[in-house]
């Protein structure tokens, strides 16, 4: 069903370049690309050593935009991220020292290790693509995407992200261990040397063009209703759900489905685009109640069941 014959670099080019650096984790790389096209932020969750940070760095390097990494720690301050005002003695005026948030791709490593005050400093940047330092508001460069990583294992000394902030992330990706075959390839390819980063595979202008193209993709009315039904299914009374997803999730699901369709070379969205995008969009937007713990229900299975229960068009 390939439809497009886009000029310049196609999204698939970027995906292939990323796959050369990151062995395995193909679904993660695809989801990162889709989020980049959809203009959303990504949170990656998985145990240490599964190429979460590497994937984000490779993406930034391949896109050719500016990249900044912030290691979140308990003593981090909001000004360490957004910047601050400093007094210049020579000019006798205050000047703005911009923080690492001023980059195309910002990697917030172990975002849940910083307290809520610092996490909240990201809210304005993530939602409005702007930050306020002192009296002035500054626009962030476009494209602007926050890729955050979280380690679910060491919960001591971490601060759970509030639901309001989790909602700002377009997708949450679960990073799993590679297969034995992939691990052998990792050993062969990176036997001691650091992995080579793909550089300048596509330009920032390409990404912005993809975004425009994705926004123009067609969603048939039955599919639009399917998207709404999927999100609405999370709001129906459920024995394990405290709260469902917001309309922001509806918009996110449509945007991600469009990005997936664009990557697939189509000018229209098909049911597969929606259904495949749904888990990543919904899983971090649902508030599960205590019974999921007492009954040992896997939230991931719950999300899958919710999605499977909605008839596809």
């Amino acid at each position, binding site marked *: *069903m390939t*439809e497009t014959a886009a000029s310049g670099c196609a999204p698939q080019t970027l995906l292939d370049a990323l796959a050369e650096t990151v062995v395995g984790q193909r679904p993660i790389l695809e989801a990162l690309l889709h989020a980049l096209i959809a203009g959303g932020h990504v949170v990656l969750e998985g145990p240490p050593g599964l190429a979460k940070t590497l994937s984000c760095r490779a993406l930034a390097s391949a896109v050719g935009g500016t990249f900044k990494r912030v290691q979140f720690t308990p003593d981090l301050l909001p000004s360490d991220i957004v910047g601050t005002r400093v007094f210049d003695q020579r000019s006798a005026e205050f000047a703005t020292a911009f923080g690492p948030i001023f980059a195309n791709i910002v990697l917030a490593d172990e975002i849940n290790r910083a307290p809520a005050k610092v996490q909240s400093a990201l809210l304005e940047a993530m939602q409005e693509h702007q930050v306020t330092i002192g009296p002035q508001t500054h626009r962030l460069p476009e494209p602007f995407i926050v890729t955050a990583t979280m380690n679910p294992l060491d919960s001591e000394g971490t601060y759970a992200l509030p639901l309001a902030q989790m909602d700002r992330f377009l997708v949450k990706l679960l990073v799993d261990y590679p297969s034995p075959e992939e691990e052998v390839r990792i050993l062969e390819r990176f036997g001691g040397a650091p992995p080579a980063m793909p550089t300048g595979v596509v330009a920032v202008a390409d990404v912005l063009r993809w975004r425009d193209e994705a926004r123009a993709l*067609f969603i*048939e009315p039955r*599919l639009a209703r399917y998207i709404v039904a999927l999100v609405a299914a999370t709001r129906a009374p459920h*024995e394990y759900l405290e709260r469902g997803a917001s309309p922001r999730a509806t918009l996110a699901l449509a945007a991600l489905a469009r990005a997936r369709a664009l990557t697939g070379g189509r*000018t*229209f*969205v*098909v*049911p*597969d685009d929606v*259904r*495949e995008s749904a888990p990543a969009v919904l899983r971090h937007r649902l508030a599960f109640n205590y019974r999921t713990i*007492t*009954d*040992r*229900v896997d939230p991931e*299975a*719950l999300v*899958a*069941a*919710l999605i*499977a*229960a*909605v*008839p*596809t068009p």
Partner: protein
Amino acid sequence: MALTRRLRALAFAGAAFFATAAQAQTLLTLHVRVFSMSLDKTTVRVGETFHLSITTHVDQPVLELDNVTLPDLSGFEIGGDERRCSSSGRGSECVEVLTLDATEPGMRTLGPAAMDAVDARNGKPSRFLTNSASIDVLPASPLSSGLPPWLRDVLLAVLRQIALLVLGLAALVALVWALTRRKPRPLAPPAAAPPAPAPAPAGNGATWQSLLAALAGEPSRPRVVAVREVLRKRVGARDGETLADLLARRAAGGDETLRGALLAVERAAFCEDARLGEAVRAALPLLERLDAPAGSGAASRCGA
């Protein structure tokens, strides 16, 4: 005889006078503000317990009031008598509560109760009276009235056993319910596999051809959807299964014509309206090459 009578009367009057004078000397001097009587029920059955309260409020600090004369309580059994007094800067309040059981049916009026004291307002011995109170005593309940005591005891014992049995059953049901509820319910079961497509009945080919002819004559979204439905039935698509699922599960990948037809129909079903005609034209040759699919005579969702 008459003298004797006069002497007796005089003696009686004298005795009465001295008795009253002696009693007056032992009476408390009180400024009575409140002296009333009340019942906590206005209707009771024979054998049923109720309470009669006599409330007194006086200006003087007193520890107890022992010169209160109770009303006539014939027809009632006194089950208890509780008295308490509390004093403050504004005087004392004493309440006497009698626990009574009615023994005879009928409308009964109790009271008034009386209290003898020296009225502090004029210094004279006085008798203070409460109000009266009425209570309607109904006959005992049928269970306890017309039955001999031994039979009543047996019935009560049986009823007690039944109540215990019901309570036990309720507890058992609650326990079973709680245990059942705590088990994690299986999440949405996978969609049941539909039965294998039946062999194409005679005549289906004609229906399939008519569907395709209608689509070719005037391409529209409902007609594409109808053809897609029939085609999906042919390849045994399950409820909720997408095209990717279908292609992955089925051996459709091996049948290039079928695979091409599925992809082309999917495109026609979801492409932009402006490209619908083009998509249908691309799909029709592939669809016409297929055999008549089973179930093509089924009603379509879109009624094409």
